[in-house]
């Protein structure tokens, strides 16, 4: 659906994007994470043919950028960082212009459909300059969807929105996933990426890592469980460390942190061993590493490598 091969962009001396290769599958929500200036927006602009790459190429919905730009643009929807609406025009007028530019057959019907879907129909004849940020963002999303593109690029869709509006937008993106569209989501919001994305890519000019959020977490830290005990003794640490499936053990104030590969398989054996050793197991839970933690560690790793 979206395939980039060695995509690079240089602005004068500044290398904004360096040799990015990635593949986004149909129907996938693909998160694109990175700090400001990492090249996220430039990558989106290259993939939507707004700027030309200085190296590499890409195919979007089967059309190659640089040689079939109009077809690429006809097959994608783009939500830019700012809504970019015409403030003096009404919601209907704003959407009507884009529907016509995309050659939508039933312009009034399609405009009505999306305004209704995003709960803006009652405000359809008001100038959008008076809309709240959340409403403007919803209208911009509607604009990106009017021509029913199979791929959607969302550049920071919830930035600058209050939590309530951000939630509405997130829920809508979640609904779009159910329609089988490919969604390329640039975001700073790691929690959002964790919740919405099937896979995420971390970029800092170069692509640092691409994987599912879960695999990123496990790949970086492995899996571990926290065992809470009524009474912790040093002997328990040795007994657990001797178990063949345990990779490491860290004593805690009221229990143990045990690193292992498959908690689903090995937790019962672990509990049995502890109970056999006379421990009173109060509870056991898998430790969760946030995507935020993964992100910061990957960034630190990338900075060190660059230095």
């Amino acid at each position, binding site marked *: 659906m979206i395939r980039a091969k060695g995509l690079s962009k240089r602005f004068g001396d500044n290398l904004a994007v360096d040799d990015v290769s990635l593949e986004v599958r149909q129907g996938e929500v693909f998160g694109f994470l990175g700090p400001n200036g990492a090249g996220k927006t*430039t990558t989106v602009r290259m993939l939507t043919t*707004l700027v030309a790459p200085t190296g590499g190429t890409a195919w979007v919905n089967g059309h190659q950028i640089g040689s079939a730009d109009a077809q690429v643009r*006809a097959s994608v929807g783009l939500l*830019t960082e700012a809504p*970019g609406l015409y403030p*003096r*025009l009404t919601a209907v007028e704003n959407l009507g212009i*884009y529907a*016509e530019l995309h050659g939508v057959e039933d312009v009034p019907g399609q405009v009505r459909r999306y305004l209704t879907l995003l709960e803006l129909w009652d405000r359809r004849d008001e100038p959008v300059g008076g809309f709240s940020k959340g409403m403007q963002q919803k209208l911009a999303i509607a604009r990106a969807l009017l021509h029913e593109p199979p791929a959607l690029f969302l550049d920071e869709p919830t930035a600058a929105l209050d939590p309530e509006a951000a939630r509405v937008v997130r829920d809508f993106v979640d609904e779009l996933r159910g329609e089988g569209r490919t969604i390329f989501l640039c975001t700073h919001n790691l929690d959002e990426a964790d919740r919405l994305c099937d896979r995420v890519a971390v970029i800092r000019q170069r692509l640092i890592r691409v994987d599912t959020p879960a695999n990123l977490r496990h790949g970086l830290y492995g899996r571990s469980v926290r065992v809470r005990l009524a009474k912790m003794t040093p002997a328990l640490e040795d007994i657990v460390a001797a178990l063949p499936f345990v990779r490491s053990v860290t004593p805690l104030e009221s229990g143990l942190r045990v690193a292992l590969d498959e908690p689903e398989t090995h937790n019962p054996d672990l509990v049995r061993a502890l109970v056999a050793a006379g421990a009173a197991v109060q509870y056991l839970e898998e430790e969760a590493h946030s995507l935020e933690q993964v992100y910061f560690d990957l960034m630190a790793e990338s900075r060190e490598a660059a230095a």
Partner: protein
Amino acid sequence: MNLSRIRVITRKEWLDMRKNKMVLGMMFLLPLVMVAMILGTAAAFRYAPEQVSDPLVPDGTPGLPPALAEMDTEDRTLALLNDQYMFYLLIIPVSLPVYIASYSIIGEKETRSLEPILATPISTSELLIGKILGAVLPAIVAAWVSYLLTAVGIYFLASRPVFLYLIRPIWTIGMLIHSPLFALISGAGGVIASSRVNDPRAAQQISALLLVPLIGASLLVLMGRVYLDTSTLLWVTPIIIALNAGILWLTVRIFQRETILTRWR
């Protein structure tokens, strides 16, 4: 080239213009002032001839065109005065588009709407032609309506010789053919300025410079250094059309979408 996409952009420009009272006011003000000047002069000569100044060109002045020589001195003075104003009427479609067009790209950048619009299948030439027409067509309509009002007003306020002299083929050809052509040049100039600088005031100042050659040309005509007749006007038409084609090509050619999207702040 997709004409329907050009039409969409032009209509969007008009919608926006219609809701911007300042631009709309400016659009009507200049033509109204011009028409009022011409008809006001004619009315003054008709209803208060004793108040108007001495005749500009007395009877028997050598070198007068026959149409003027045959008029009485009052009519001749009115015809000569208004003939100058008619030239200003011709300038309406040139002076208005440049100001409107000079905001066209900067305006999109200010509302941050350029990126979404460039992400549609529209081509650069379709976008820019749509914008130029959006600025030019209302000015042409304003000029034609002004010309029509002037003709009707002069018909009722002035004598038949004055009417025939003022509404003569040279002005009608100029209004129907040359004004739109110059308006296109003016609109394209405004779009060029708008796509090369990122400050609306700078764009308008640069655009204003485009009017300088035109004002110079009008001065030459008014001072009698250049005599415009119908054949001269028709003879220069292909040159103006070629100039139009050249400036349209240049407008599209120098539109740097990457620079506008990535460097303008």
